[in-house]
């Protein structure tokens, strides 16, 4: 099964406008043929298990954009689901460049799998360069604090950072607010073991309720694109105002998504 490439994945990846060199690589290590394999594996594992639904795909503009969702679920399943629906269900298909945590490049094997599939180290200059190259990036402005939320904090938002807004202003990129419903229930963390996290140099160490992710249904809601103008290097208070507008829309999308959900599973 691992060797077989899904024909729909292959078609979607072949249609991508991403620039690659004569050996098939871009500078970050994305490779269409390898990506086909890993997206096929992802599709076969995640789609039947989490059965993602999606709304608002028509809101995705053409060209560069920052997708800004809530973050949850301890593991980056939400990022993978967004990447999967944007590739498989959007028309035209989009390759979402996920911004990974700074310790990912240190992980043997995983680092290569992620970079061949299009993931990139979460660094402002990487984001800027990708946006200037008209690519799609997904940024979780809550950072690791967002994915490490415990059960009582589910579907609340940790404070958004300002970096994504400065990038959007600098590169004149639209922001697509997004809500992911389901992540909070897939891996329920009852406690964040902070002393263990400090010991291992991890952002958090969850105590999960179950030893594996639950087969919760995921719902992805894309909001209408938001365009901002102004100086990217403006004072923090000015940027904060704009950031707040985005986080408010994400909150509304979460509320809408939760209201529309009839069952967790």
């Amino acid at each position: 099964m691992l060797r077989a490439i899904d024909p729909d994945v292959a078609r979607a990846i072949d249609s991508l406008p991403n620039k690659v060199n004569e050996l098939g690589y871009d500078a970050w290590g994305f490779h269409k043929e390898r990506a086909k394999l890993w997206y096929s594996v992802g599709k076969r594992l995640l789609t039947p298990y989490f059965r993602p639904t999606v709304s608002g795909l028509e809101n995705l503009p053409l060209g560069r954009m920052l997708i800004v969702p809530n973050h949850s679920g301890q593991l980056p399943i939400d990022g993978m689901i967004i990447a999967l629906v944007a590739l498989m269900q959007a028309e035209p298909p989009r390759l979402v460049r996920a911004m990974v945590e700074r310790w990912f490049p240190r992980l043997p094997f995983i680092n290569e799998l992620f970079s061949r599939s299009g993931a990139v180290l979460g660094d402002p200059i990487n984001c800027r360069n990708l946006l200037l190259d008209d690519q799609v990036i997904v940024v979780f402005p809550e950072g690791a604090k967002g994915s490490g939320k415990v059960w009582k904090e589910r579907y609340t938002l940790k404070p958004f950072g300002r970096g994504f807004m400065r990038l959007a202003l600098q590169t004149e990129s639209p922001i697509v607010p997004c809500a992911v419903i389901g992540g909070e229930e897939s891996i329920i963390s009852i406690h964040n073991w902070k002393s263990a996290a400090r010991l291992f140099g991890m952002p958090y160490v969850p105590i999960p309720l179950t030893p594996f992710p639950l087969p919760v249904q995921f719902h992805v809601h894309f909001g209408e694109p938001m365009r901002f103008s102004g100086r990217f290097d403006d004072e923090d208070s000015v940027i904060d105002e704009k950031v707040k507008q985005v986080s408010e829309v994400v909150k509304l999308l979460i509320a809408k998504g939760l209201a529309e959900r009839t069952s967790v599973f």
Partner: protein
Amino acid sequence: MTTTLITGIAGGLAQRVAAMLLEDGEGVAGVDYRETTGIDAYPVYRASYDKTAIEDVFRKVSPKRVLHLGRVGNLSEPIEKRFEINVIGSQKLMRLCVQHGVEVLVVLSTFHIYGAHPRNHVPISEDDPLRAGTSFPEIADAIQLDNMASTWIYKHPSVRTVVLRPTNVVGPNITNTMSKVLRRRRIPALAGYNPMTQFVHEDDLARAVIAAVRGKERGVYNIAGPSVLPWRTALEITETQVVPMPSILIERYVRTFSRLPAYLIRFFKYPCVITDAAFRRDFGWESRVDITETLRSAVDRRPPSR
């Protein structure tokens, strides 16, 4: 006739640059602290760049252009020797350039000073920090040489100075560590790591040096070569057999037994992808040798298998 003085003339790159200049009918003289043999087409001097003998070379040659390609890159040389030649010697060369009215100075630095680091963004430009020293302080001489030459650009505007930071240089005449690694038939590889890498052919770099001499701009420039590719793909092109081993074993082995500089291991683990967009824009240079030919040319001198 304008004479160009080239340091490091015992090396393959300097000799390629000299040959290209001679083909264009320009005057060339070479100097090296090492013994140089087999060159009849132009005068060659033996002088350490940090000693008074180099002063006499400048008096005899009266160069209008100096190409300082003679940095000691081999980190298995003692740090004291590298410091004397790379830092004290380069400082002396630069001072002599001002004293003798040299118009153009090209200094060959290296992309190694950026360091291969898990937090490196892509691509690295000339304005980015030099991280190598944080994990490998022994590279201080290369960083200091680069910093000194970069400061020189603005301190002494009478000499148009261009500092080049090329990526891995390979080719039939190059004998640096990377070329030696590629020429082996079988090498251990760090299991689970396959970073993006770049290579530039010796002829492309030689043309870049000449473009820097003949251009009008001054500054620090990366030279990245044709295409970026994963390390293992490079090894497939050179038909090098790979033996995957845990990185910790390889790192320990290199630190304990090998003459290979330990910091080089990081370049097989994390990416250090640079951009040469500025050099292409300012000097109209482009690489002519594609990545496959670049890599294959490096292993032309591979010893026959037993």
